[in-house]
């Protein structure tokens, strides 16, 4: 009983509960048809949110004002880079993935360079950077009609017993992220900086280095996401990452990470991603118009965060 209460007092459990409720509502509507397939599809799509969500989580945990707004542009560019380098050949998959990761890492590193050199808030730095990256992507990726190599496209869709392989790998990745967050010097340092940057510096944390690593990591994950998205959706696209600006932030916060920094939660990102994906699936199933869908999505996000309650730390 007390264990159950403890479980329900953890903020992230609600995102899983929410995901389950939405799924139930949808299969009730369809009369039980397609429940399993819906879960498979949801897992596949949630993977993309989880990957960028983890990167965004580390950034947001660095403290108030830290957020990466360049993810959509980064994802778009990386998708184009990956497709160009792979050039439709199975033999070049690894090379293409590496190129996408490098593109993302470069974006992340230059983000931090702007923050550090110009001493401007990350919101503005990553926003300005995203303008530039977006243009590079438009100039570079226009009319890019390269299909992903068949092996890569298949990999992003392959399943075992209805569970996408990509989802399994992402679960392993999130376990690694959770360990890095809670048990490694890197994670401890991020959490310390997020609570009190000055105190962290005075306690011997290499603040500059850790922040650099975090922004680079987030950029790299954006790059990975770009490549995977291009594989899954059969081609690169300038706008392929657009929805991940809002959803990467939303999954982090709904998942129980504190916007005030210093407190993060990895499992919650999975729950929140599934919740958001299933929510969209449900609204599509109900056949509502675009306006109503946006309206309901917004109201539900506000409703969820209100119900989950704030843990906004005092600033």
């Amino acid at each position: 009983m007390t264990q159950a209460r403890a479980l329900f007092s953890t903020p992230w459990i609600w995102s899983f509960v929410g995901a389950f409720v939405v799924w139930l509502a949808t299969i009730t509507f369809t009369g039980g048809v397609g429940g399993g397939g819906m879960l498979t599809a949801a897992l596949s799509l949630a993977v993309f949110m989880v990957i960028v969500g983890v990167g965004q989580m580390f950034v947001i945990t660095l403290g108030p004002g830290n957020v990466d707004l360049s993810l959509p542009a980064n994802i778009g560019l990386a998708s184009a880079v990956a497709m160009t380098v792979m050039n439709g050949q199975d033999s070049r998959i690894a090379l293409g993935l590496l190129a996408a990761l490098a593109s993302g890492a470069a974006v992340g590193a230059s983000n931090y360079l702007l923050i550090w050199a110009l001493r401007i808030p990350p919101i503005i730095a990553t926003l300005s950077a995203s303008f530039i990256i977006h243009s590079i992507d438009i100039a570079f990726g226009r009319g890019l009609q390269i299909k992903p190599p068949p092996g890569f496209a298949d990999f992003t869709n392959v399943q075992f017993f209805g569970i996408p392989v990509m989802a399994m790998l992402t679960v392993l990745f999130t376990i690694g992220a959770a360990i890095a967050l809670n048990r490694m010097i890197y994670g401890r340092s991020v959490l310390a900086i997020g609570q009190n940057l000055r105190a962290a510096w005075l306690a011997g944390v290499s603040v500059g280095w850790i922040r650099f690593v975090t922004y680079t990591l987030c950029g790299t994950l954006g790059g990975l996401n770009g490549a995977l998205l291009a594989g899954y959706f059969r081609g690169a696209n300038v706008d392929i990452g657009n929805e991940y600006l809002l959803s990467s932030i939303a999954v982090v916060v709904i998942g129980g990470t504190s916007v005030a920094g210093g407190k993060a939660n990895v499992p919650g990102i999975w729950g929140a991603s599934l919740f958001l994906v299933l929510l969209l699936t449900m609204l599509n199933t109900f056949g509502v118009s675009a306006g109503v869908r946006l309206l309901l999505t917004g109201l539900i996000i506000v409703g969820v965060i209100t119900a989950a309650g704030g843990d906004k730390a005092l600033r």
Partner: protein
Amino acid sequence: MSAASAAIERTPVRPGSAARARMLRAMLPALSLALVVIAIAWLNPRAISYFGFNLMLNLAIPIALATIAQMFVIASNELDLSIGTFVGFVACITATWLRDAPLVGVLILLGSIGVYALLGALIHLRNLPSIVVTLGMSFVWQGLAILTLPTPGGKAPDWLSAIVSFKPPLVPFPIVAAVVIALVVHFGLMRTSYGAILRGSGGNPVALGRAGWSILRVKMTLFALAGLFGVLSGMTLVGITTAGDANIGNGYTLLAIAGVILGGGEFVGGRVSPIGAVLGALTLALAASPLLTFMKIPPDWQVAANGIILIVVLAARVLISRRER
């Protein structure tokens, strides 16, 4: 001991050094604006004229109003990621209901200001992160805008078009309007006794509560003001473009944040400046399209140029404030 120490003069502090530093910091937004105007004058001297400014600052008024709206939210240590779609929503209402059934239109707009006040209350009472709440609200406003006006259209009320196309002698209307907006908000926020309380809520809310002020009321006031200026922004925007579009304001969220920061505002601590915010908005409005057109930047790279200009202006700001030390 106290007699001995009282007889000795205390360490002299450089008088007014803090005040001078503050003055310089306050001048930075104006310098940024001057930089952009000089660049335009250098590229195209003919642009520096009555008609030139009228044309170039065409969209400056709605941007300035949206920036002021964002500034009120930032003053209370929050952030509004929905102001852009809210401006779009207001534009759609203005182009439809306000023209066809003015009473209903006015009620809807007043109601939306009320929603803003309630958001402020919700964020305060439930201690919610404003980024997420307003992120959700941005979907809500956009959804409502699409439901109101599924495809671009409608028409601005005639009186509104008449106001925004007003041509005063000598000084172009956008400049007159910007000065009026800056002075009115400056007086209200920086010079009135309740304005001090509003700003104090960003500096030290706990102290304000101990002094007997209601933080709830302060937050609701600030959010309602944000809503009010968002409404004004959307209305003037429709007046200028003459028709509504659900996506018309989407870019304003980030422009408004950038404007506040460019204007010397800070994300936490209640440090904002209305005059700076308006200057920041003008800088961005000028940098966004006129400057780029004069520089003959190909369309592909216009977005990048925007980013570079933002970075250059901010870098200049860093250089100047470094010298000040």
